[in-house]
């Protein structure tokens, strides 16, 4: 018995997949509903527009392969984006890279906040952004970041203490 593997031609493969994508209105709907918001969230977390877009696009790529199995694709997308942003922050720390440059057109108050965010440990930065930019409760942040709620509250307490010290005159 001999097994022969036959590969489909590249052209037909692309055509088939493209047709499937065009027909996948649900994924397009998710993109329209979430993409801009996810890029803003990622940008607030990691401070670099190009990396933020790459993170979100990678997340869409991942979600596209298992879209049919997801009950709440929006929530799953948010979890992936936050996880990937944490990976970027962690590698940046491990590599001891210079933080991204601050946008030039920020008002002074936001400039100060930007600098303080850069100093926060990644867990604390993520907790603060999810709490005060996205408006999630600690229990919801715990689900997104796969941490106990008590740990999230602890991150928030420490972050707020550090930020008050730096930002309050």
């Amino acid at each position: 018995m001999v097994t022969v593997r036959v590969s489909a031609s590249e052209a037909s493969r692309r055509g088939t997949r493209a047709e499937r994508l065009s027909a996948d209105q649900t994924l397009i709907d998710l993109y329209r509903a979430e993409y801009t918001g996810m890029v803003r969230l990622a940008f607030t977390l990691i401070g670099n527009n190009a990396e933020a877009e790459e993170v979100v696009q990678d997340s869409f790529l991942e979600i596209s392969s298992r879209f049919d199995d997801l009950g709440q694709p929006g929530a799953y997308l948010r979890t992936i984006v936050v996880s990937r942003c944490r990976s970027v922050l962690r590698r940046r720390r491990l590599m001891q890279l210079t933080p991204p440059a601050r946008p030039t057109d920020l008002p002074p108050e936001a400039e100060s906040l930007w600098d303080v965010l850069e100093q926060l440990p990644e867990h604390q930065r993520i907790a603060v952004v999810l709490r005060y930019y996205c408006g999630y409760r600690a229990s919801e942040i715990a689900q997104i970041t796969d941490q106990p709620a008590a740990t999230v509250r602890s991150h928030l307490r420490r972050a707020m203490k550090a930020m008050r010290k730096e930002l309050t005159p």
Partner: protein
Amino acid sequence: MSRFEDTLQRDLTVIADRATPSPDAWQQIQRRIIDQEPPQETEIIMLTDNTTRPRRWPILAAAAAVAALVVGGVALVNRGDDANDPADTPTPETIAIPGPDDDADVDTGPDSGPDSDADPSATPEADTDPSTEGETAATDPRSLSLAGTLSAVLDFVPPGDDGVGSFSGDDVITGDLFGTGLAEGTYRNNDAGDGLVGNNHLVLDVRITDIGEGRLIIDEQWASKLTGSSEHTGVVTAGTGDFFGATGSWTYLAPDGRDNPATDKVETAGDYSLELTLPSQADADRGWTVDADGVITIGGATHSSTTFTPIDDGDPDTVTSVSTSTHTDADGAVTRSGVGHRVDPDSRTSFGIGRDTQELTLDGFGTGTLEWVVYWSQDPHLSSRQHLIGATGAFEGYTGSLIAYGGHPD
């Protein structure tokens, strides 16, 4: 919500509004989804006569119950009668040290021959040489192409003052090759500042259908982007067990590495490809054994197990040790000592690079020293690779290398 929290909320929104999503992002995503689609394959199954059935690789002629060991002994080959003349400078090509592809009893000296070689150690080796007995064992190296998935959980340690960090972790490998392993290496920021580059030392305990089990040691270099995808290329530097004498090339592509906040470790998975060449069956059947006391017998020679004496070098992560061992040729004792190795005491497998200065006296040849660079790993399987970087006395001008593989003592 306090006034401070209100301000924080407002300023975070101001920062978020500075993000500028690309207008053609959907097209980019669509293109990438198409590009990452794996080739569609269809299996066509055909019935054919068994006599025409192709063999993927030769089946092992005999079960390798004795874990194979290829030699770490030193075979200094007789240069002929002129070797006893101290005024005669030896020619460089007359040191032969058996490796996995070498025939251990082949004399390469200009005047060598079965009758002129007074070394009795050659006799038992000659008896085990399939080529001299006319056996029909396969003589061609066996080449394999293997592919599958490797997943890893890695623990990264930030860089020190020298900018070099380290990592370690566990691997699980599936596909044509199946097993587990250890990863350990270093990394640093790459020159462009947009990712990491590093070296990795993989010690994989693996099994290949129709071949057997053993250990593969792979050294690789890798590069990753900030977002975590990484590309690795490497070579097989040693094999033990049923893979002794293995050589090969290795690639590993991991599309993404993900931080797990619960463990604070990086989890990664991707596809590997391994081109592996194993020695011929005739070479595989020749080996050496280790007895319960750790004494290795290689033909007519023995090699005692190495003992390590740790020395506190002030570095809590490593231990510098000194080892001594004794190699006894059938025609006389050869003692070697003074090995310096760096050992990771926390690793299940220790490996390192060191130097070994060997004072050697060989009957009929003379006395001198050999200085080796040693790359080794030590575990139930033993593996080391040595390269001669200096020789004095009777061995001045010689170059060579030594490869030792091992298996579980029977």
